[in-house]
């Protein structure tokens, strides 16, 4: 017969007032298998815990039930007390007779009866508890950072500075991300590149950072402390080990008319190119779709149509035959910092939920551009050298209309959320514009101004009050080309008047969306994401940089629209989490994970289908002679988080969640 000890807590008056604790102890004491039952004023106090310890020692208890407050409050306390007296902590559980009983009932008789029931159910459960040992997992002290924008750069540097090794994966040819495209940054108007490029170089030179640019994550296996990541290194057609970034190849490339992605297609580049002069790594990429040689090969030409770059390269770094290659990296933690893209307002949208704007003529009227394009126009390193010229004819625009909330906060367009950064950058744009075109008129159509942040409200007020931007509260219904100008039909909802402005250029503050492909990356990582594709944090308040998968963290605008300081703060926070994880030799995990009874497993793999973590593996079972007997499920203890969905799904109940086994729950129900 089991020897369970039952300890009923009065919690001062908290329980004792409505529950007859002495009676609970007395009745539980009558149960077969209960070797000891007492009540006490404060079980969690030192003397209370001593009662538990003494009883374990003196009565030889093999299970402890503390009927007191919520297990969320003191389960650890009592488990530790049990552990200290040599009883496996998992043989101790709590019955919640405070939050679930004494505090919510007044009828003493009913509350006492309920307390007895609740405690009895836990006693019956504990009779079937098994001693469990924490799971220990070794930790690979190396992190993968996905995305080389400001968030990824910051996370990589912080982790590396903290002593960890980092593999930084960037899908573009250079790190730097959107920040490298910006002209100046709000609210200080300091030069974006000036503050960013040194960080980029630091990354490149850091002995503990391995930079894999022009690469993408192909597959992720393993679990916290022990991920195995397969990375696709896309073919640059340039041997990175040979190239010294001299730029000869670019200067000889005959195709100089390729729209530059970095300049948001406002500028041009060559077919073999470095996206921008400060690129890190400073190694060109050959854009095969624009290259005459590859275009010729695609058409089946016998001889290569070009090859100038190869001839020009003194280091024989050009390799037209280069193929994508794969590397596998073992890492202990992953930081996702894939950043954002701008909502494209055209009619064609990637998902049916998103709707475009036909009425703004984006893509049709060349002088209707988006915010990022304006950044390039305003940038000293941009296609116009920082002179504001409109794309259609290069004329200096005298009137620019800025439209806020394009897509954002518009459920009809499929984006209910606020993109957070637009109010600020539009204010910045008006200032940049007015600094460059002193007589220019900057109109802003806005819905509200959201400028919460240090120095933010001051900044927008400065744009309006000191820098002469004209803010009109209202929506624009239509943009129409009329000769040299763009007719902006809007409404000023404050005055109630319709407004029509003849603009030379219109800048749309389009919504911030997560990067394309984020869903498939999230699926590879088994992390969850919201309806828009933004990565879900583990808890919106308390675990803002963790994800649903242990060991995978999130930073920057891939989690939600973020400005630079937010992104950097998140990145540092994620880095701290990573370093915290790395500070352990081994991880200790709760042993409440699922285990499969392989002899009963039928191998239908319903469990595999429902496991949110991909913790179920297929294991071949062989007989003595090595013949395959069957394929059974096996749960990877490092990956399993203990939700138990597998067990409820398993038709034959051949998988058991430790701590919540069928026997335990059956016993609890049986006792109610």
């Amino acid at each position: 017969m089991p020897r369970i000890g039952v300890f009923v807590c009065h919690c001062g008056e908290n329980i004792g007032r409505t529950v007859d604790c002495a009676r609970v102890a007395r009745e539980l004491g009558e149960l077969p298998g209960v070797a000891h039952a007492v009540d006490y004023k404060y079980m969690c106090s030192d003397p209370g815990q001593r009662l538990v310890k003494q009883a374990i020692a003196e009565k030889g208890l093999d299970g402890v039930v503390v009927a007191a407050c919520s297990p969320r409050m003191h389960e650890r306390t009592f488990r530790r007390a049990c552990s200290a007296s040599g009883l496996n902590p998992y043989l101790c559980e709590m019955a919640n007779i405070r939050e679930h009983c004494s505090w919510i009932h007044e009828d003493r008789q009913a509350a006492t009866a309920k307390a007895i029931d609740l405690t009895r159910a836990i006693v019956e459960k504990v009779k079937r508890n098994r001693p469990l040992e924490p799971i220990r997992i070794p930790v690979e002290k190396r992190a993968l950072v996905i995305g080389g924008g400001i968030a990824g750069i910051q996370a990589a540097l912080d982790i590396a500075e903290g002593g960890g090794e980092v593999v930084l994966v960037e899908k573009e040819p250079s790190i730097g991300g959107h920040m490298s495209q910006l002209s100046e940054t709000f609210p200080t108007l300091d030069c974006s590149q000036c503050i960013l490029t040194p960080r980029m170089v630091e990354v490149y030179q850091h002995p503990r950072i391995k930079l894999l640019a022009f690469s993408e994550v192909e597959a992720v296996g393993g679990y916290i402390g022990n991920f195995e990541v397969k990375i696709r290194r896309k073919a640059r057609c340039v041997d990175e080990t040979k190239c010294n970034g001299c730029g000869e190849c670019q200067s000889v490339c005959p195709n100089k008319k390729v729209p530059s992605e970095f300049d948001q297609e406002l500028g041009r580049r060559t077919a073999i190119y470095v996206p921008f002069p400060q690129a890190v790594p400073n190694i060109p990429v050959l854009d095969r779709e624009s290259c005459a040689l590859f275009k010729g090969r695609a058409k089946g030409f016998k001889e290569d149509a070009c090859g100038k770059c190869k001839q020009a390269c003194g280091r024989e770094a050009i390799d037209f035959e280069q193929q994508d290659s794969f590397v596998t990296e073992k890492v202990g933690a992953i930081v996702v910092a894939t950043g954002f893209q701008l909502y494209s307002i055209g009619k064609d949208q990637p998902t049916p939920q998103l709707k475009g704007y036909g009425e703004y003529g984006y893509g049709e009227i060349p002088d209707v551009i988006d915010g990022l394009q304006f950044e390039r126009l305003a940038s000293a390193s941009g296609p116009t050298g920082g002179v504001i010229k409109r794309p259609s004819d290069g004329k200096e625009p005298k009137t620019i209309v800025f439209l806020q909330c394009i897509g954002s906060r518009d459920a009809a367009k499929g984006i209910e959320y606020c993109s957070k950064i637009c109010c600020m950058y539009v204010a910045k744009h008006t200032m940049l514009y007015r600094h460059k075109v002193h007589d220019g008129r900057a109109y802003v159509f806005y819905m509200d101004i959201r400028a919460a942040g240090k120095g933010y409200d001051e900044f927008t007020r400065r744009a309006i009050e000191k820098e002469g931007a004209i803010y009109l509260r209202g929506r624009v219904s239509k943009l129409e080309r009329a000769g040299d100008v763009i007719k902006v039909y809007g409404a000023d909802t404050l005055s109630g008047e319709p407004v029509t402005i003849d603009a030379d250029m219109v800048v749309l503050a389009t919504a911030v969306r997560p990067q394309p492909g984020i869903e498939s990356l999230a699926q590879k990582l088994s992390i969850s994401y919201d309806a828009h594709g933004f990565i879900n944090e583990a808890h919106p308040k308390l675990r803002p940089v963790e994800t649903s998968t242990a060991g995978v963290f999130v930073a920057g605008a891939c989690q939600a629209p973020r400005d630079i300081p937010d992104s950097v703060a998140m990145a540092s926070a994620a880095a701290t989490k990573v370093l915290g994880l790395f500070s352990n030799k081994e991880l200790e995990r709760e042993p409440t994970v699922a285990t499969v009874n392989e002899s009963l497993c039928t191998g239908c793999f319903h469990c595999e289908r429902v496991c949110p973590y991909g913790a179920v593996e297929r294991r071949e079972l062989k007989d003595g002679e090595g013949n395959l007997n069957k394929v059974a499920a096996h749960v990877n203890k490092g990956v399993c988080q203990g939700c138990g969905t597998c067990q409820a799904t398993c038709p034959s109940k051949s998988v058991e969640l430790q701590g919540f086994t069928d026997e335990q729950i059956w016993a609890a129900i049986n006792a109610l």
Partner: protein
Amino acid sequence: MKELRQIAAKLLTDGAVKVVIGWEEGPRGARAAFVTRPEDAERLIFDARCVQNLATYLSPRRRHVVGLGKAAVVAKPCDAKAIAGLIRESQVKREDVVILGVRCGGVVREPTMPASLTAETVADRCGICETREPTLYDHLIGEPQPEPPRVTRREEQIAALMQKTPQERFAFWSQQLERCIRCHACREVCPMCFCEQCVADKTRPVWIESSSHPRANFAWQMTRVMHQAGRCVDCGECERACPVGIPLNLLTRYTAQSVEKRFGHKPSDDPSIAAPIGTFRSDDSQEFIR
């Protein structure tokens, strides 16, 4: 029939398979045949009396059948759905079975009946079945078949039952399950019941008691049908096997109706289409959840 026998004989002669599982003439009508020699392929028949679902014999738990070696199996559309189920749930590898699909115009209720289909004789499930030929097969055999006589007896019975109060339904099933002797024939014949050990045989803990009192019988049938939700191929074998005549297909069919209504899922013979339980959509209806 000739085509079937020829293909079966050829498969055996070529050594492509070791056994052809089909139907033969037995003392009480058509029944399963296990043909291992080409010359015995002549025993094979196919007509409207071939009621039994032969997919059941492909379960890896049928060690004596597995021991015969690679099998070809004759499959009506509903049998093919069961084979797809076995493939879907990793019990059978597609390449390990040769499927001799047969076009089917419905079967009679009992293999002892004459092969002619009338509204009276046609099996309830065939009365509403819309699949005349399987899509999962290696060979497709037979002429295109006419529609079976359309009957909706069972659907009407279900509708009538659902018109009643829960208490009346409880009384109905109590009376039916009073007869249950927990022989588990419904399970053993079911092509989709292939567990190494059934939850009803689990002893630690005993969720479903093995005694045939109504309490355990309720638990058993609710659980069995729950496990069949979205997986049942409506072959009707459970009800046909029940030695005490419990109308089990009312349960399985009602569940299938619910699953179809809720999740738009119908059992198919495409192994790549997952069963609805074990998957989800974030916007699944939840009108019943407060």
